[in-house]
C-alpha cells in the first residue's frame, strides 16, 4: 500500500522526460533511501532554480541573471545574432565555443496546423533588437524541417525589410563522421545540391 503523498511524488516524477511510472517509482524510492545525500540537495536545488532562474528578456535564454550571462558578455560580437528555436539549441551551439556572437531564442517554429503563428514566437523582440542594435548578420540556425524552414523564410522576409546586410542559415549535408551508406535520401540529395569546390 503506497501512501497518497508517495503516489503523488511518483506520478510527478513519471511525467518528466524519459521517465515512465516504473522509473518514477525507482527514483522516488532512491530519493527516500538517500534523504540526506540526494533528497535534501534536490529540494534545495529545485527551490533555488524556482526562485532564481528566469527567462532573459533580451534573448529568451534561461539564466539567473536578466539579461543573461551571454547577453552581458562584452567579449561577444554584437554585430551577429544567431536565431535558434529553443534554449536547448542555444546551449548546444554555445557548447561548441565556435560562435562568439549573441543569440535569440524564438521559442518554437511556425506551424499552420498546430496554430502557432508569428505572434506566438519571440519574433517582435528579434526585430526590435535588429532595429536598435548595430546588427550586421543574422544566422538562422533553425531545424531543417518543413516548419523550421518555413519559419526561416518568414524571418528572412521580415529581416530583409530592416536592411540587415547578411542573413545566413546553417549548412545542410553530410554530418562529421557520417558514412554515406547510412544517410537518408533527403540528406544525401541536399548534400549533393550544396556541394563545394575542394
Amino acid at each position, binding site marked *: 500500500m503506497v501512501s497518497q503523498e508517495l503516489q503523488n511524488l511518483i506520478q510527478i516524477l513519471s511525467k518528466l*522526460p*524519459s521517465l515512465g511510472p516504473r522509473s518514477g517509482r525507482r527514483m522516488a524510492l532512491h530519493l527516500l533511501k538517500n534523504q540526506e545525500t540526494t533528497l535534501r540537495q534536490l529540494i534545495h536545488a529545485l527551490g533555488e532554480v524556482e526562485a532564481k532562474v528566469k527567462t532573459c528578456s533580451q534573448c529568451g535564454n534561461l539564466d539567473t541573471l536578466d539579461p543573461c550571462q551571454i547577453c552581458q558578455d562584452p567579449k561577444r560580437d554584437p554585430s551577429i545574432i544567431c536565431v535558434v528555436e529553443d534554449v536547448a539549441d542555444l546551449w548546444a551551439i554555445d557548447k561548441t565555443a565556435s560562435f562568439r556572437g549573441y543569440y535569440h531564442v524564438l521559442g518554437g517554429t*511556425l506551424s*499552420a*496546423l*498546430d496554430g502557432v*503563428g508569428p505572434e506566438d514566437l519571440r519574433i517582435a523582440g528579434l526585430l526590435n533588437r535588429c532595429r536598435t542594435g548595430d546588427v550586421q548578420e543574422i544566422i538562422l540556425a533553425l531545424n*531543417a*524541417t*518543413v*516548419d523550421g*524552414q*518555413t519559419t526561416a*523564410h*518568414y524571418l*528572412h*522576409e521580415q529581416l530583409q525589410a530592416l536592411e540587415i546586410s547578411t542573413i545566413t542559415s546553417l549548412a*545542410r549535408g553530410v554530418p562529421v563522421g557520417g558514412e554515406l551508406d547510412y544517410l*537518408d*535520401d*533527403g*540528406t544525401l*540529395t*541536399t548534400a549533393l*545540391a550544396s556541394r563545394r569546390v575542394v
Partner: protein
Amino acid sequence: MEWSDTGIILHVRPLGEATVVLSLFTAEHGRCSGCFRLSKQNRSWVQLGQTVQATWRARLETQLGQWRLEPNTSHVSLLLDHPGKLAALSSACSLCHLLLAEGHDYPQLFTQFQALTLNLLTDDWAKAYVLFEKSLLTELGYGLDLTQCAVTGVQEGLVAVSPKTGRAVCADVSKPYERKLLPLPLFFLKNSEISLKDLNEGLHLTGYFLERYAFSHLRVGMPPARGRLLSYLDGQKETAA
C-alpha cells in the same frame, strides 16, 4: 487488422516524447492517422510531404492504430530553400489534412498529389499547385463546371465563374456582372502559358470556393501556409513590376 499502402505524410503531431501521431494520405485507404515511434534514424525523414511505404495495424478499424513506415524517395529536402514551393507543399498537406474525410479513398487526388510533389521541383510549380486545388474542390464535391457557359451554352470564350454556382460564363454574358463574377484564368481550360496575374486569379478562384464551401463547416480557417504562398506570389509580382 492490417494493411499496407503507399502514403504521403500530411501532418505530424507530437504524442509524448518519442511518439507522434501521423496523418497520412494513402493511395487506397485515403487519409488515415496512427501512432509512430520516432528514432534517431527516422527523425530526419518524418516530415510533411514525405512519401512512405506504410503499414497500418490496429485491433479494430476505428482505433488510432500504429504505423510501420519505410521512406520512399522524396524530394522534400530540395524544396526547403524555396519559400514559395515550401509554402505550396505545406498548404497542400494542410488542406488535405483538414478537408479530406478519414478512411475515405481518393485515388485520383492521391495521384495528383504525388504528381504535385514532383511538379514542385519544376518551374511550373505554382500552376501545378493551383490545378491541384481545383482537383481538390472536385473531389470534395464543390467542383467547378467549366465545360460550357451557364447561360448561353457556348463552349468558347469562357472568361468568368459564377461565385454562386461555380459554373463558367462567357465574355458577352459576364460583362454586366463583371464585378460580381470571379475571373477565370485560361490555364484552367487548356494548357497555356501563364502569368503571375493568372496564378493569382486561379488562387483567388479556388480560394473563394474552398473558403466559402469546404471550410464553412470547420472551426478553422484557411491554412496560413496558403496565405504565405499568396504573399510570396504578390512579392514576385512586385519584383517583376
